[in-house]
């Protein structure tokens, strides 16, 4: 009895010890495997933003506010081959109808003005349709191509727990020297970006949200500028049509001009 009690006590101790070891060693190992690296967080957030835009058409609305008043409304159709080849056609207002912006590869942007039937090369940091967005803000969503991420911590943003990333430009030709990026921890949904210049001054802030819970990525983008008070531009995706294949010529600068 004493022997069996001893054996039982020993077994119980061994079990407790094993459990304790598992608790102390096993749990951190599991959690380390689950905690993504900053680059993984950025990549997953980029994927969310992209909304699988390859071979897709997106209709969107640009609402430009000045001094809290809606100043201009634009409607555009974006034809995506992939995120480096995009054709933006303005369909509203009639005054701007026919204007096109082409991204014909990384950092290769063209603006076509129908009135003069001429395409001019523009910079990725140029303003898109005189809004607070630059060309690169909307058309080149994959920040992981241009920036080196670093995790600054996890903090609350709009009641969501979010990763706070600091993205540093890989070189000086990148439009922004630094971006502070908040990504929702639960599903890597992009929440906010603060864009900084090379002099480390905040230039503008982008807030993103989904119009419905069904959306896996953001479809509403609000860009506020620090240059002017009460100045912002809201971009809303109105319709997304996947599975649209476009001829390669659609994304060539030579195809912009009227013939």
């Amino acid at each position, binding site marked *: 009895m004493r022997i069996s009690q001893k054996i039982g006590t020993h077994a119980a101790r061994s079990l407790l010890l094993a459990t304790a070891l598992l608790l102390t060693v096993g749990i951190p190992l599991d959690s380390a495997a689950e905690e993504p690296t900053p680059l993984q967080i950025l990549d997953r957030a980029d994927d969310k933003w992209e909304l699988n835009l390859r071979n897709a058409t997106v209709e969107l609305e640009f609402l430009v506010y000045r*001094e809290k008043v809606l100043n201009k409304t634009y409607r555009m159709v974006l034809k995506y081959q992939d995120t480096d080849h995009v054709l933006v056609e303005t369909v509203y207002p009639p005054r701007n109808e026919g204007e096109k912006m082409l991204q014909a590869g990384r950092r290769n942007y063209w603006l076509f003005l129908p009135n003069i039937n001429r395409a001019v090369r523009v*910079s*990725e*940091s140029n303003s898109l349709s005189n809004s607070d967005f*630059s060309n690169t803000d909307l058309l080149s969503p994959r920040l992981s191509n241009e920036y080196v991420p670093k995790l600054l911590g996890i903090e609350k943003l709009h009641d969501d727990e979010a990763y706070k990333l600091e993205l540093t*430009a890989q*070189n*000086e*030709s*990148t*439009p*922004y*020297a630094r971006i502070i990026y908040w990504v929702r921890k639960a599903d890597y949904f992009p929440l906010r970006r603060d*864009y900084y*210049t*090379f*002099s480390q*001054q905040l*230039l503008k802030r982008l807030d993103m949200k989904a119009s419905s819970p069904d959306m896996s990525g953001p479809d509403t983008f609000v860009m506020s*500028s*620090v*240059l*002017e*008070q009460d*100045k912002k531009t809201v971009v809303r995706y109105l319709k997304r049509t996947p599975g649209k294949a476009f001829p390669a010529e659609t994304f060539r600068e030579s195809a912009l001009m009227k013939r």
Partner: protein
Amino acid sequence: MLFQLACKNILRNRRRTMLTEISIVFGVLVIIGSGNFINGMQRDWAKFEINSSTGAFQVEHRDYQALGKSEPLRVTLENSTRLVENISGIPGVHSAYGKLNFTGMVSSGLKSTFFDGQAVDVARQRKTLTRQEDLIVAGKPLGDAPGAVVLGADLADTLDIKIGDPVTIVVRTFHGGLNLTYGTLVGTKNGRHFPSSTYLEVPLGDAQKLLRASDRVSQVVVGTQDFDAIPALMQRTDAALRSEKTAYTVRGYAELIPIYAQAIASFKVISAVVGFVLFVLVGGGIGNVMAMAVMERKREIGTLRALGMEKNQVRRLFLAEGFIIGGIGAATGLLIASVLTGLIATHGGIHLPPPPGTSQSLIVIPQMDLWMSSFGVVMPLLVGVFAAWWPASTSANLSPVEALTET
């Protein structure tokens, strides 16, 4: 003999000769005077622009004219400090400074718009462009302190800001990234060399830091104190820069001052028209005098012909009279024009209203113009001879018998 006779004939009707001479002198005076005025105005206008905006000439990248508007930072000059020092050391160069042209957005906090910027080496600019401050319409020029901003008067109006207000400047850097800085409006200016609605000026050091374009400038502006030696100095500078790795081009003030070449060409056309009108008037006057002389002196011509004077000699006599009348008028006109030009010049010149876009009046100091002076002297001589030709031929062809019997 013939010349003396011609002189006597001219003095025979002094009143008519005097009236003719007055018209010739007036014509010569107008031609030489307008030439001197235009020459003076051209020089003083050029000097004003040289000392306030353009410098005597500028050195820039060979491709600046082609790419400067669209991509000004791509065609900048590197090692600008050394380049400015080298140019400053060329004999005849009084001083030189670098300026950097760039574009971007400027904001007041409530409004923002595009600008065409110019960054200047303030201390050296002050030495090179001695009248640069004349273009300031409010506040003061850029000082030595960083963060100062001067705007075109219209741009300040667009942004609705006043002296002392803060501005935010956003640019694309030399490498393509975005950069931002804050500044304070210290002055507004106007001028014809920049659009007032988009002009922004900051110190060179601030702009080079903002644009991350260290030791780069778009142009080197060169000043000299010898206006007439500018073409030779440009040649010397061009020769001195030929050994440099970068392909430079040297552009003179005449090319840099907007509408200068067209305005000077217009002035020359006006001078030519005035000259032609006077040519006709003076020619008509001399022709009239000669024709009257032939009419009045038919008996005398008949006597000369009867005494054996050849047709050719009679013709030469009248031509000599035309030449002498023209010569006296030309010499007198030249003398009066020279004296008046000198008097006006020594009394401070002629004050003209400020050119468009500036608040400073333009003072024109007339300057003898060699071409117009030569034209003013030669014209009445030629016209005198030409206008006397027909009366001279008529008189030479008179038959002695007809001339002596005519009542």
